[in-house]
């Protein structure tokens, strides 16, 4: 019997939700374990970085990497797995587009440290102590990893072959992607392994979305009791459906809350936020500026709304404060 294909899982700057997503395959995970040889999964199995280093280049069929890149170590590991793998898969929103941790790109390291260790309400730090990446003690040093000013998506660090989107990816998406990769008939490099249509197109509420949508005023979710059967945009709620890729099973919509965009854009769109802005422009049927301002009052945080999961990977990438240094 030929060797089973080798597969690796790895995590960078992430919350652990992507690991839970794999565990959420539940009984199905036993089928996955039977089909592949998992050679590296720090959260679950024996591993050594040196073991990976000792493998022949390209000997791993596929490495699934979740989390954004915040530290040099994460970058090194991404490069190592790239070298050892035929296929590198960005798994989940953070690896795909930066994810929610990339909202930190609206600040820099110094501002983040200052808030976390000095100015938060319960912190008592009269001497202004900050964690040090290297601390002298008896002539030796205790180390902490330093981190970059800028959070990056995986493909801003190394070449990525495929993407599994979502915060977190859903079990059916994961199972489908693994099947595709093991099937051998590989899609073109760069493919996002989900349906390439906007969420609206197969939304259970599509029938209630007007052909020509005109919005007089956007409403924030806490301001309105949303009808459970009607298109949320038609109710004035900012739903990212028009600019977001489908495939999640409309979980948030089923929860009666608007899509926040975690699957990223379809292949026809370079920048999810820009796409959404143009969609909005066509929804606002006014000429006069005051009316437009009133309509947009319901979107008090455009960057955090349109780029909730995609700031690192977007055309904006980050707020300019400091250079992207080490």
């Amino acid at each position, binding site marked *: 019997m030929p060797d089973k294909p080798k597969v690796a899982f790895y995590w960078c700057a992430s919350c*652990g939700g992507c690991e839970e997503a794999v565990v959420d395959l539940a009984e199905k995970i036993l089928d996955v374990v039977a089909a592949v040889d998992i050679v590296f999964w*720090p959260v679950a*199995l024996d*591993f050594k970085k040196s073991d990976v280093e000792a493998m022949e280049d390209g000997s791993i069929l596929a490495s699934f990497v979740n989390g954004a890149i915040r530290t040099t170590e994460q970058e090194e590991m991404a490069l190592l797995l790239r070298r050892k793998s035929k296929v590198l898969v960005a798994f989940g929103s953070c690896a795909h587009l930066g994810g929610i941790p990339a909202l930190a790109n609206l600040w820099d390291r110094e501002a983040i440290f200052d808030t976390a260790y000095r100015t938060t309400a319960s912190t008592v730090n009269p001497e202004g102590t900050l*964690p040090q990446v290297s601390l002298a003690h008896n002539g030796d040093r205790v180390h902490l990893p330093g981190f970059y000013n800028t959070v990056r998506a995986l493909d801003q660090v190394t070449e990525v072959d495929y993407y599994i989107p979502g915060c977190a990816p859903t079990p059916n998406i994961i199972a489908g992607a693994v099947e595709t990769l093991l099937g051998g008939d590989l899609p073109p490099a760069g493919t996002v392994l989900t349906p390439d249509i906007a969420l609206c197109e197969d939304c259970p509420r599509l029938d209630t979305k007007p052909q020509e949508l005109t919005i007089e005023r956007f409403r924030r979710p806490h301001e309105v009791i949303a009808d459970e059967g009607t298109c949320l945009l038609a109710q004035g709620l900012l739903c990212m459906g028009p600019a977001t890729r489908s495939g999640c099973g409309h979980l948030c919509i089923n929860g009666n809350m608007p899509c926040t965009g975690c699957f990223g854009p379809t292949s026809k769109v370079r920048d999810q936020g820009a796409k959404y802005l143009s969609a909005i422009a066509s929804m606002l049927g006014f000429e006069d500026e005051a009316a437009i301002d009133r309509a947009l009052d319901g979107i008090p945080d455009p960057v955090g709304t349109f780029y909730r999961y995609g700031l690192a990977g977007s055309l904006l990438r980050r707020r300019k404060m400091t250079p992207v240094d080490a």
Partner: protein
Amino acid sequence: MSEEMTTQEAWHQGSQGAKAAYARRRITVDPITRLEGHGKIDIFLDQAGEVERAYFQVPELRGFEKFAEGRPAEDMPQITSRICGVCPTAHHMAATKTLDALYKVDPPPAAKKIRELVYSAFMAEDHLLHFYFLGGPDFVVGPEAPAAQRNILGVIATVGEETGRQVIAMRRRLREIITMVGGKVIHPVLGLPGGVAKRVTAEQQTEIRRTAADAVEFARFTLDLFRKVVLGNPGYVELILSDAFTHRTYYMGVMDEKNRPNFYDGQIRVVSPEGGEWAKFAPADYLDYVAEHVEPWSYVKFCYLKPFGWQGFTDGMESGIFSVAPLARLNAADAMSTPLAQEAFEEMYATLGGKPVHHTLANHWARVVEVLNATERLKELADDPELIDPNVRTLPTETPREGVGVVEAPRGTLFHHYVTDSRGIIEKANLIVATQNNSARMAMSVEKAAKGLISKGVVSEGILNKVEMAFRAYDPCHACATHSLPGSMPLVVEVHGPAGETLSRLRRDSDGSLHRE
């Protein structure tokens, strides 16, 4: 002005240090980061070869408190859940309750019940994850068993494959309740100020009731298993009681009006190391009681009881160090709110010699008591006719300014605190995550184990397992670095001599295998 200089100087110093660290790392593989999923312990010896200092370090910082600024408050339940994908429901619910406080809005009864239903299902499935997959292997398979068997596969081998499948299925069904009611299980979407996003239907209630009834039975089974395996073995009980895992600290938990633990809502009660009530306060007053201390050698901050001031890493009545999580909650309680949990609570304290119990490893037992409590509460709520009342939202009308919200996360008391402008845009956020409350006690556990096991420069390999058991009992969540599924967290211990030279380096991988380097 002078403070600004200090910041710059400190920053400059940090950058210099970073360069030095990177230079060193080329020679030695730095194991501290999640790169290899390793936590790191640095131990320093004095001239006589005795432990002078041990550091248990946490390499986590993502800066949520900073990038919350400028976001609309109503987005916080979904943004802060990304702090942890294993316990997203805890952050989601703490944030949602903070929004209630921020907008001074009281949700309708059905909304509160729906939230607590989701929360009870979450508490049960998360505790089951820890009991069977993370911490349980120490006891179910046994602390003396070969390390390679001390994982979920070992648990399944011990309890039988049928039971193993039942564990997986029970967790799946409990998580399906969260998906059904809360939209998503990994990062739910139900929470809004004044209620929840959608009602529960009669059809859904029928399914929830079925799962809840089975969950209570499964919790009883889990307690029986714990009794058989642990209480049936005097060696295990002795281990729980051993001094290496004992600290006399304060204990904190959220309680109802009868001082029974309530995971979703209540007042915060703190008892002293001698067991008496030290304080009971409303969440909004937390700043009078809880403070965070910064050490330069870890990204995690160390919580303590503010009136004592920071006394260093020391326990006892004069120290302000406190503990949270299952054992702390039970220590801070007078009773449990449900009958089966109450029975189990009494049995635990009778066996361990009364309250409070200071033995860290008793957390595993307390966790099983809480699985019973969570599933019984889940069943009460599932059976409640009001659960399907369609009125699940009170629209806020007040102008927002400031709010505090607290829940008991599986790993302990979780605080969210937001200050907003009049449009509800976050100006400042403060988050005290459950594990932080335990970080001082955890650091003490590690140092105590190191001091107990190392003498005259001789390092016992047993230190790795012992130290690991000490902190795994807290079910710590350091940037998820320690969410090691099969029950063994990979670890590196470095021992340095008085001149700073590395005397030895031990690595214990996630399968339990030991490597001396």
